């Protein structure tokens, strides 16, 4: 029997569908999962992916990708590459492994939801490939991180992170439950493939890949580049969904994309910003976080939403201003609360590093230099204890990240301001105006309790630093600490200091 040519059958099989006669359409595609809303169901018949793929092609390509990625890994296993990597770069990879491995698994569930409830056969077909992609990503990320557990116990958090109540995975669970677990498939396709994967995974996978190669971590660069090739394909589920939604309900399209862009931007400021501007060794940095955001995220995002006839989000000015502050404040918070991290956050504020930061962010010294100077002087006074936390940072009720975004006052002083809301008998605090507005517009959605909420409700016992660290799953062997205090404080040894808190005097008792 002669095989048909690809073009003779693909147009038919890619959108195979059925017309049900024994059950109602609504029973198979319930609105609460499908979320067609104001879009007439027949409008989804026009859904068409731009890059078409068949199952045999998919399998052949994926096999090739897997083979080459694991071949590089096997070759590098015999070298001492890992031992020679900078501690800062290792921390960037620990953040990535822990913060991403199980999010990839959550994405499997999202793709499966679209594979079941997507409103067109070709959409369901694409999502079926998408869930296979995400399964591969969960596996490859977990496997690559696992290799290092024997050499450094912090890599155990590759798998452990999302099984703990550490504040970082709580923030990420809140984001991805909102983006993947709870939405109907129309919103999901706008939030995950359209906004997060088309926009933001570029940041994690292209920027970090470049920094990985510069830092000599070929294995990591190879892994995330391999993942990115899948993202580029399955993220295209967002485009056709957006086209149809914009045509029938532009207000909803604008709201869903605005909300998910903001949440993604906040998370990346915490995870990618410090990795690019502080953890990557100075000589290996390709671009600042702000430069990368401007080139790869902002320009592309604006073009994309304008192509669909949408507007810039209402919070645009606040977002652009935040490119100079969010990740610097979050970096300081991650460093100060370092016992709550599963990596070794390096401060990265030696004189040379500060000169680089000031060249990329002209206000950096004005806003952050004075705080780092006090901590530097405390380390040089042999009082590291003063640089360790005795309470919690206040966590935003929308993004669950510390409220640490300074804005300028009329007198030129930069201050962190309160954005609060009294609602339903409770007082909420937010890190930004947009986080407060998103909470208000989305208040009927289920939100996770922040770590502050849990602590004040008595869920964390005993109510002290030890109790909090235990609740977060922190153990002494994996708890974060600065990898090299001298690296960023020795430039300042011997300078005159004043205004330091005294060291706690330990008095031995008989």
């Amino acid at each position, binding site marked *: 029997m002669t095989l048909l040519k690809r073009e003779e059958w693909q147009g038919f099989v890619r959108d195979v569908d059925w017309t049900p006669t024994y059950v109602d359409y609504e029973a198979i595609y319930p609105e609460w999962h499908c979320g067609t809303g104001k879009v007439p169901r027949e409008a989804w018949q026009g859904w068409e992916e731009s890059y078409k793929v068949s199952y045999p092609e998919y399998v052949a390509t994926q096999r090739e990708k897997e083979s080459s990625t694991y071949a590089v890994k096997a070759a590098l296993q015999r070298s001492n590459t890992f031992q020679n990597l900078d501690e800062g770069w290792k921390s960037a990879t620990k953040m990535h492994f822990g913060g991403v491995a199980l999010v990839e698994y959550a994405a499997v569930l999202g793709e499966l939801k679209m594979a079941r409830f997507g409103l067109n056969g070709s959409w369901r077909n694409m999502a079926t490939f998408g869930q296979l992609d995400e399964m591969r990503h969960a596996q490859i990320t977990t496997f690559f991180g696992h290799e290092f557990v024997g050499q450094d116990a912090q890599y155990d958090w590759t798998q452990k992170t999302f099984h703990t109540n550490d504040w970082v995975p709580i923030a990420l669970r809140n984001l991805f439950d909102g983006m993947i677990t709870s939405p109907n498939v129309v919103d999901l396709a706008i939030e995950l493939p359209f906004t997060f994967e088309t926009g933001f995974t570029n940041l994690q996978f292209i920027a970090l890949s470049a920094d990985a190669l510069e830092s000599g971590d070929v294995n990591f660069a190879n892994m995330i580049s391999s993942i990115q090739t899948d993202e580029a394909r399955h993220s295209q589920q967002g485009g056709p969904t957006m086209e149809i939604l914009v045509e029938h309900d532009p207000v909803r399209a604008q709201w869903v994309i605005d909300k998910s862009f903001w949440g993604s931007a906040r998370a990346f400021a915490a995870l990618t910003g410090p990795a690019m501007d502080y953890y990557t060794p100075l000589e290996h940095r390709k671009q600042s976080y702000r430069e990368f955001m401007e080139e790869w995220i902002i320009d592309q995002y604006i073009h994309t939403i304008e192509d669909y006839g949408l507007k810039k989000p209402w919070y645009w000015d606040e977002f652009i201003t935040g490119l100079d502050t969010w990740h610097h*404040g979050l970096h*300081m*918070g991650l460093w*100060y609360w370092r016992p709550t991290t599963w990596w070794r956050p390096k401060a990265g504020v030696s004189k040379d590093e500060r000169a680089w930061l000031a060249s990329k962010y002209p206000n950096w010294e004005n*806003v*952050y230099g*004075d*705080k780092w*100077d*006090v*901590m530097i002087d*405390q380390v040089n006074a042999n009082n590291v204890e*003063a*640089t360790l*936390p*005795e*309470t*919690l*940072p*206040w966590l935003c009720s929308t993004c669950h990240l*510390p*409220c*640490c975004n*300074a804005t300028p006052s009329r007198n030129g*002083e*930069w*201050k*962190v301001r*309160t954005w*609060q809301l009294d609602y339903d008998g*409770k*007082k909420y*605090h937010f890190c930004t105006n947009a986080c407060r507005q998103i909470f208000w517009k989305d208040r009927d959605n289920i939100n996770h309790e922040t770590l*502050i909420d849990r*602590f*004040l409700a008595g869920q964390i016992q005993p109510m002290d630093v030890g109790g909090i660290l235990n609740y977060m799953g922190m153990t002494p062997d994996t708890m974060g600490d600065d990898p090299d205090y001298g690296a960023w404080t020795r430039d300042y040894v011997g300078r005159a200091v*004043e*205004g*330091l*808190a*005294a060291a706690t005097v330990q008095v031995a008792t008989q």
Partner: protein
Amino acid sequence: MTQSQETVELGPEDRAPELVPLNAIFATDFVQILVPVTTADTMTEVAAAVAHHVEGKRVRARPYEKVVIHNGRVVPAEMTVAEAGIAPFDHIAVEYLIPKGAS
């Protein structure tokens, strides 16, 4: 014989101190923090409780009096949390009272 059913409303100063968790920011610090105080604490004590986590640790200590700002007004130093009407989860700022002419 009947007993008087009259009840007496106790003032804040007569009640046992209760815990009041606050959202606080100290001067030019980079982050809001959780600071637990009690209804019986004076503003001087509240300012000290907030300063304990920041002053000389992230913000250089200055030789000036510290004041508590709640709902946009400076609360008198001797006033207690209960008297000032500061409730759980409220936001307060602690600032140095810098004399005119001082840098």
